[in-house]
């Protein structure tokens, strides 16, 4: 009688302990759902990675907006470089969601691949942009410094995104091909107007793609880290 009661008590206690521990563990899993054991580097938490990525993408977007406005103020005023209507960006081929519903329905794996593709596709153009802006006659330092900064930050963001990808989707192979930029000849043409137009277009595309990356990243952050409750 007494023994049975004692066993029951201990059993209930054990059960309680088990439940509590499970709750705690589950809580931990929910809060940081993606950092499985054995997936290599889990030193930086996913939350921190996302925070940093959001900060960097926000910074890139700011820089590209400023650079575009600067260029527009200097070189495009009065010349009618409404090139955005004519030219498309080299990354337009990527199937990026264009509105909120589409983005909501896109799986975070796809979104991350798209982000990575965008970032990778801009490595080359950014490098050439810096080179060519340097060679531009009377290029203002504001544009050049921002171009250099954007190129650097783009690499950082790419690294961060790859880390996030490794943590969120461990083992998944990210082998999406990214669009190749082929606008270098237009940047180097002797025709000044054409060249300026090419620059304008490139800067406009950069601004737009940086906005895309920024939005997609915020979306992922709120979805993965904050559970759609930012």
């Amino acid at each position, binding site marked *: 009688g007494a023994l049975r009661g004692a066993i029951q008590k201990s059993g209930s206690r054990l059960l309680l302990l088990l439940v509590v521990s499970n709750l705690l563990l589950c809580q931990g899993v929910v809060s940081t759902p993606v950092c499985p054991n054995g997936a290599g580097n889990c030193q930086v938490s996913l939350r921190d990675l996302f925070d940093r990525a959001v900060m960097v993408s926000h910074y890139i977007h700011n820089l590209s907006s400023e650079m575009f406005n600067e260029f527009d103020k200097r070189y495009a005023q009065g010349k009618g470089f409404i090139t955005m209507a004519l030219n498309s960006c080299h990354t337009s081929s990527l199937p990026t969601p264009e509105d909120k519903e589409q983005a909501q329905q896109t799986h975070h794996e796809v979104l991350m691949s798209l982000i990575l593709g965008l970032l990778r596709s801009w490595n080359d153009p950014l490098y050439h942009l810096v080179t060519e802006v340097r060679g531009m006659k009377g290029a203002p330092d504001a544009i050049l410094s921002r171009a250099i900064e954007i190129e650097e930050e783009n690499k950082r963001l790419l690294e961060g995104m790859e880390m996030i990808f490794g943590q969120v989707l461990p083992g998944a192979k990210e082998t999406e091909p990214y669009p190749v930029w082929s606008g270098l000849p237009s940047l180097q043409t002797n025709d000044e107007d054409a060249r300026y137009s090419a620059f304008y277009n490139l800067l406009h595309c950069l601004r737009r793609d940086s906005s895309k990356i920024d939005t997609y990243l915020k979306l992922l952050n*709120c979805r993965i880290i*904050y559970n759609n409750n930012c």
Partner: protein
Amino acid sequence: MIAGPTGMDLWQLLLTLAVAGSSDAFSGSEDSSGNPKFTKCRSPELETFSCHWTDGANHSLQSPGSVQMFYIRRDIQEWKECPDYVSAGENSCYFNSSYTSVWTPYCIKLTSNGGIVDHKCFSVEDIVQPDPPVGLNWTLLNISLTEIHADILVKWEPPPNTDVKMGWIILEYELHYKELNETQWKMMDPLLVTSVPMYSLRLDKEYEVRVRTRQRNTEKYGKFSEVLLITFPQMTPSACEEDFQFPWFLIIIFGILGLAVTLFLLIFSKQQRIKMLILPPVPVPKIKGIDPDLLKEGKLEEVNTILAIHDNYKHEFYNDDSWVEFIELDIDDPDEKTEGSDTDRLLSNDHEKSLSIFGAKDDDSGRTSCYEPDILETDFHVSDMCDGTSEAAQPQRLKGEADILCLDQKNQNNSPSNDAAPASQQPSVILVEENKPRPLLIGGTESTHQAVHTQLSNPSSLANIDFYAQVSDITPAGNVVLSPGQKNKTGNPQCDMHPEVVTPCQANFIMDNAYFCEVDAKKYISLAPHVEAESHVEPSFNQEDIYITTESLTTTAGRSGTAEHVPSSEIPVPDYTSIHIVQSPQGLVLNATALPLPDKEFLSSCGYVSTDQLNKIMP
């Protein structure tokens, strides 16, 4: 890539139009023709957008509804008319979410009676301008102690149509505030959160706040929210306390001054009674009967005497005199010439001193020269009485001296054949106690003895010869040098000295298991008193093993050839016995020539006589 030649044509047309109209597209100048123009296109949440235009001045002239707006997107290569002219109000076109595509360039055109009057190109992400925040309110955080200032927390909600939770849009807020009667708004730094504290607002003032928001990374703010009025309910009617403040400060100051004045008057006044009452003197530590001045002057003796009266005061007086009692002469070291003093004590008649020293049983003075430390413990009593302090034995010794003299007289009669004694004649029987090293008596003493004996045979020279050794000096080697002739005081009268004094010594002596030959036993028998004296003397002689040493003996031996030296040599002069054989370091066989041997068996066992045997011998 743009598909189709028609698209290309369309875009070129657009470009032409754009170039043509770019100069005054957004210049804001009023069109003289009065045509409608686009005023603003705006997306509040990045999901929908709307465009607005103005009516032309000549609105009345034109037929209503003739104004149309068309739009075109890059992916939709054709102009389409505005899907919703109504939702956004008059002269507007509303594009709902299905028509909205972010990051897609749009171009719109406005036609009036078929004629393009305006156009515009944009992307949706560039025209984001959120609605004003809602739910602006405030809560009280805390009120200062003075009840003059307060801290509050202002809160609001983002515009409802913005999907902040999902992260589709990130909003940035700007708060403005001012006092009610002010005209200029003050603004705070942009915030990303929907609440902000405001500190140190005056409770008696009223404030106004308003907030607006914009998408982060864009430039255009949305409209301001409604103005919020902040008024604090009157806490207490004592808000008027600011006007009149009780002059506590002045009262305190005057009070302190008055107190200070009063104190000064009291202190320096001559009213001792009041002074004592208010400022009682601090009691100094005091012990009954003691004048503190004594302590100050440092007269400790007086203080001590006074303090000694008290029972609980224990003071030990250490005067210098008492130290003398406790001084212990370290005479353990034989190298020290302390034996000189011992010798004097041995021979002097200063009984008191010896007695006094003897009485000090707890010290080693005077005895350490005679004994090794371990021996002292073995038989304290015996050592005291017999060996120990030579001084102690002195009184008896003196008697023994006399007895020996008497003995000498007798022995001389019996010692003609002493010359023939081959054995060295021991000046004295060396009685050895257990642990004592034996003095070496070698044949060197024979001649000495003989010579001495010769001397002794001459009774006339008796007076000049000492019959027992006196320690005159201690050689550095540790040998006692005995010198004769110092004391001629021995006399026959002393022969009559009773031996009772010695008796106890003898008894004690025997108890010590000392070695002595049958000769000694004979002595005991035949010369009962003398034996005792002798026995008594012997230990006095041989307090230490160094009394007779090789050195002294050899010296005497060396001088054997020269008889004349003999008398002056420091040879102990025993005439009652002589060493026959040195059997062992602890046993000497004494020559029995000096004394007749009553029993033969004693001869054979000469050297060692046990107590039992001695008892047989003894009558």
